[in-house]
């Protein structure tokens, strides 16, 4: 089956992970397909960083044009579909689509196998049980038998065509994801 890649340029209000997934899932209700992989990437070509979202669908929606317009509505921005664009497609959405499809960039908020892994597990199990291709250590070598504490939050990124999870050394001899769900907020997040 040919991958069905769609992408959009969401408005700022839906950029948070949970909002983004909710917007995508809502638009796909009744379409007969779901988004098995959802990843964001930042387009800096215009100076102002703009975040786009790319989706890999499980198949062709029953009514593609209706689904597309529903997605555009929930994301609050234009949607592009791989290999279907004529004229001048949205820059941010197109960049997100190409980055994800080619695996050059993109931070995966959802990916196949995500729900199946939790708690602590060996690196090999994480790679075999999910779409993650590889774990890359920051400041640490990743041994194949090393154990990763997922902390219930994984955001692998596309890099060189591979879905890569950055990890670092945590306490107690286990690895931990480099990106965590709730980093420390300065000023209660209100300072800036």
């Amino acid at each position, binding site marked *: 089956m040919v991958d069905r890649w769609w992408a959009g340029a969401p408005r*700022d209000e839906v950029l948070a992970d949970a909002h983004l997934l909710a917007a995508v899932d809502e638009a796909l209700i009744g379409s007969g397909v779901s988004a098995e992989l959802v990843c964001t990437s*930042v387009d*800096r070509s215009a*100076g*102002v*960083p703009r*975040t786009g979202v790319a989706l890999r669908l499980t198949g062709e929606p029953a009514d593609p044009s209706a689904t597309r317009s529903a997605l555009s509505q929930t994301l609050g921005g234009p949607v592009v579909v791989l290999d279907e664009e004529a004229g001048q497609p949205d820059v941010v959405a197109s960049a997100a689509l190409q980055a994800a499809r080619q695996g050059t960039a993109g931070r995966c908020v959802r990916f196949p196998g995500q729900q199946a892994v939790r708690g602590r597990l060996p690196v090999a199990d994480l790679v075999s049980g999910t779409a993650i291709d590889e774990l890359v250590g*920051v*400041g640490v070598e990743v041994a194949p038998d090393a154990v990763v504490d997922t902390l219930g939050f994984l955001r692998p990124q596309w890099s060189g065509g591979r879905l890569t999870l*950055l990890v*670092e*050394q*945590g*306490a*107690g001899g286990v690895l*931990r994801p*480099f*990106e*965590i769900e709730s*980093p*420390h907020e*300065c*000023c*209660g997040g*209100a*300072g*800036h």
Partner: protein
Amino acid sequence: MSHDHEHHHHGGHDHHHADAAGVEGTWVDPEADDPLSVSRRAFLATATVVAGAAAGLGGTVAGVGQGVAAATDRKGRTSNAWSGRPYFLAGDHHIHTQFSPDAQYEIETQVSKAQEYGLDWVVITDHGSVAHQKFSIDQVTPRIEATRKAHPDMLVYQGLEWNIPGAEHATVFMPPGRSTVDILKAFEGGYDGSVLTAQGRTTANNPAGAEPFAIDGLRYLEQQVRNRRTEIALMFANHPSRQGIDSPHEIRNWRETAPGVAVGMEGAPGHQAAGIPAPAGPGGGRGYYDRSAGANSFAAYPPESYRTFGGFDWMTATVGGLWDSLLAEGLPFWVTATSDSHQVYRDTFTPGTQDYATTGSRGAPIDTGAPITSYGDFWPGQYSSTLVASNARKYVDLMKSLQAGKVIAVHGRLIEGLDLRVRSPRQGDARGVTLGGTTWVRRGGDVDVSITVELAAGPNANGDVPKLAKVDLISGPVTGRVKDKDTFRAPETRVVETFEVRKGRKTATFNHTFRNVQDSFYLRLRGSDGKQLDSAGNPPMDKVGDANPWDDLWFYANPVFVDVV
């Protein structure tokens, strides 16, 4: 400093010195080669320095001496002349109080604690915001005045933690003066990133669009110095690598815009208790450095830049990293260490219940009676110190020494002080210079570095007497201005010698000679307790949730530049 022009005969075409570009034309006069005209030239050169301080040439502050040196040839300029064993004043330029929405202590508490932990100077830096500008400043001012009376030995500065438009936070402060509070208010009202966003003049998702406001703010501060509304104003970039949003070009632009104001950055951020393992401690990232790249981050920063190394910021801790890339340009830029004290590890207090947004204060903190182990900060001076070699225990003198880079950043009382002397006894500046200074040598000459470290004379706040294990002498060529302002590497900078410290002494003395020097260079020092080193002797990346700060102590000394003439 002597200026023996007569002893150095050289051609009569030597007046065009880059340092004097501002008044170059005025020097082209027929009397220029007459020895009697030297005094006039000295006068002009001095005027250049004074004007230069306002016009953007005042990065090195050496007054008359520097001006005269600039008017000579085959003799370099010097600044921060060595003058014997320095006397250091310990301090902290980053402290929060109940006048920040995320902090809690009375100003008096922070100043008392700072004094208890051996500090001589502090800067109160609550977060800039609409409420702070409107309601907090007028409450802070009288309290600071009261603490000055209650602690006559302490220098207590009123400052601000500025939300740099488009970037991170920064300390901004001035000495006490008639206009200090007015300037702080106007500056915050006009140029604080949070205020600008509230006014709709900048937006959070367009950091590049906000950058010009930062430049304008720094120009404003420099203008206040030029207009003599304040004798001096300083800015230090705080926790520069925490979110990757202080891009290299922004740092360079701040420095270039206001070289007398934007003089440095936190070499080590505060929140040093945040990495103490749970359940005894917060179990977070040391320095609260636990983030990764976001949409507004400078994309080329590598993942490890979001962590500390031996408690120090990646920009400072990386040999040949961003800090070195500035020094390799010949840019004076200094590093410090602060507490960023908001809520202190194992303290029993929680914030007051007052509504910050409408009153500018959290109110009186509340004692819960039980130590709170999720807090990640230390009291001012409890762990982090910025040691400044000041000529006097006076507000302006101390700031001038900070501006001149006579500064060492120290953790956990690893050292008490440092006497650094860099000179060329036979082929250049025989007297030599110290921390933050610039000296010179004739091409092909030798440069002697003598280092005397004053080792810890007693226990630190953890009850340990720290043992300095090694001192690294780090050096790199000064290769001139970079074409790409986003450069953050200095590939030729390296550790040139590592000195091991023998045990059981009060001081440790080391020497190194750079022989047959052909090109201008800089050097700097760092030292470690040796407990956490990678195979190359560098600080490893701190582990999130597993970084006991007391078992990993470092100091970083600010550089000396050596010009080849």
